[in-house]
């Protein structure tokens, strides 16, 4: 493989892996709010 092909591949894979890991881990770690729809609608009103 040429160095420019390696560079394109490495850069693209790094960007994709960085965001997929970052977002997925954040989603795993962040607890879900347990407010129900009715509670939300009441507050919103």
């Amino acid at each position, binding site marked *: *493989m*040429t160095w*420019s*092909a*390696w560079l*394109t*591949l490495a850069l*693209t*894979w790094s*960007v*994709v*892996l960085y*965001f*997929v890991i970052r*977002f*997925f881990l*954040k*989603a*795993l770690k*962040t607890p*879900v*709010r347990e*407010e*129900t*729809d009715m509670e*939300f*609608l009441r507050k919103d009103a």
Partner: protein
Amino acid sequence: MIRHQEKWGTRIGLILAMAGNAVGLGNFLRFPAQAAQNGGGAFIIPYLISFVLMGIPLLWVEWAIGRHGGLYGMHHVPGMMDCMGKSRALKYAGVFGIFTNLGIAAYYVYIESWTLGYVWYSVTGAFTGMTAEEVSRFFSMYLDTGSGGLINLNPISVIFLLLTLSLNIYILSRGVSKGIEKTCRIGMPLLILFGIFLTVRALTLKAGVSGASHDALIGLNFLWQPQPASLTNPKIWLAAAGQIFFTLSVGMGSVHVYSSYVKKNQDIALNAASAGWMNAFVEVVLGGSVVIPIAVAYLGLDWVQSNVGFEMAFRTLPSLFQNWGPLLAALGGLAWFGLLFFAGITSSLAMGQPVMSFLQVEFDMPRKKSALLFGLICLAMALPCVLFYGAGCFGEYDFWAGTFSLVAFALIEIIVFAWVFGMDKGWQEINRGADIKVPVFFRFVIKYITPLFLLAVFLGSMFKPENGDWAAAAARLAQGRSWNLAPDSVLGTVLNKGIADKRFLVDGRPTPLLFVTATRMFLLLIFTGIAVLVYKAWRNHKHPKEEI
């Protein structure tokens, strides 16, 4: 009208279901072909730019429309669109959100059934000892297209279709959490595992090892070698934008419907970004590392350049796996077709739910009954694809439901969201309960850039010139002349540019034009029928907008 009580069980389940919806056969079959035909490494630059300026914003918009509709009990696209503004016509834009899913599911489930069939054949060693020509012929026999007959009917392929359809119906009838979510929680990790196995195997293939005649890295180089000159070619940009479009399953209505089961104060911004990037990972990292490198290792770059395409997965790969020895060949086949099967079923389930939720919400139909009805409609619509595969019915479904409708609906929905619903409310909707801070820059992108991007894709597909040569078309336009339309442009398709014989019958036998025209009429009938059902549903009872 009944109010749905269904919800997603877990956040990860929802992300995997959304990612499963997006990850489909196209990630492994369409992406490598598109990249190879459009500048290799240079393709990835417009691809990523399109992802950020069109893909991610559209995902946020669709998640927001879905969650907003779900708040009013609207778990189907006509109802969600109706909630976006005062106009009564808005609900009819949502007809696309049912039609597209039905139209795509009809042929998609058929391809999905091939992958199930090929898992079976791979595991039972059916390809052992076959030559490359025999494996290719096997596929023609499987579809019954080799005999040149008018009707293509192989009972085995019909059995696998019925099996696949039954499995879809069963899972859908179990509900959003117990059916779809559970399947995606099993299917997606398995798909990634199979993908990693094949990627490692593909990238370690060297000339002289396991029967390979070239290094697989030559294939990878072909895919990633940048060709900067192609960046100025509009054809490459349209191809990249088109790929982003189809790979994320936007413009279909399935994202909206899944999102309508998200609780109203829960995050959508992070969930949408997670699912979108996961799809990009499967496509760019795994999808780009399997088919082309393996094919190049055994058949050489020249062969791949002239043969790369959708059917390669079935016609070519099983014979190449045979070079790995009986056990690895079976494992390779299981991983490849298993991966395609999971990619397929997690997407086809997402196509079923929008149809079911419309029947459930508007016609008070129980879940199991609506799943069965979806299956029956799907089967009825799939039959022309199966029986007249060689006559062009399949291509018509793919073009009108799987290509044109997606772009048309995405363009409509982004305009409705940004300009009818309004960016103030829209931005609030995207950010409500968000677990990440969405950069304010995207507010501008959603309002101006994404609609313009989509308009360019829409007009580009309408008026695509012959050979995709936009430079020549622009030169002709400057001289005040029109250009020749490509046969696969929307107008070229309507005018039957790609069909030489314009007669319906020759010696009493129907021509491809007759089949193509009949299929278009059939699809138009389905679209009209759904619009009539929407009209009836709104006439039968009040909807949230009328009650407010």
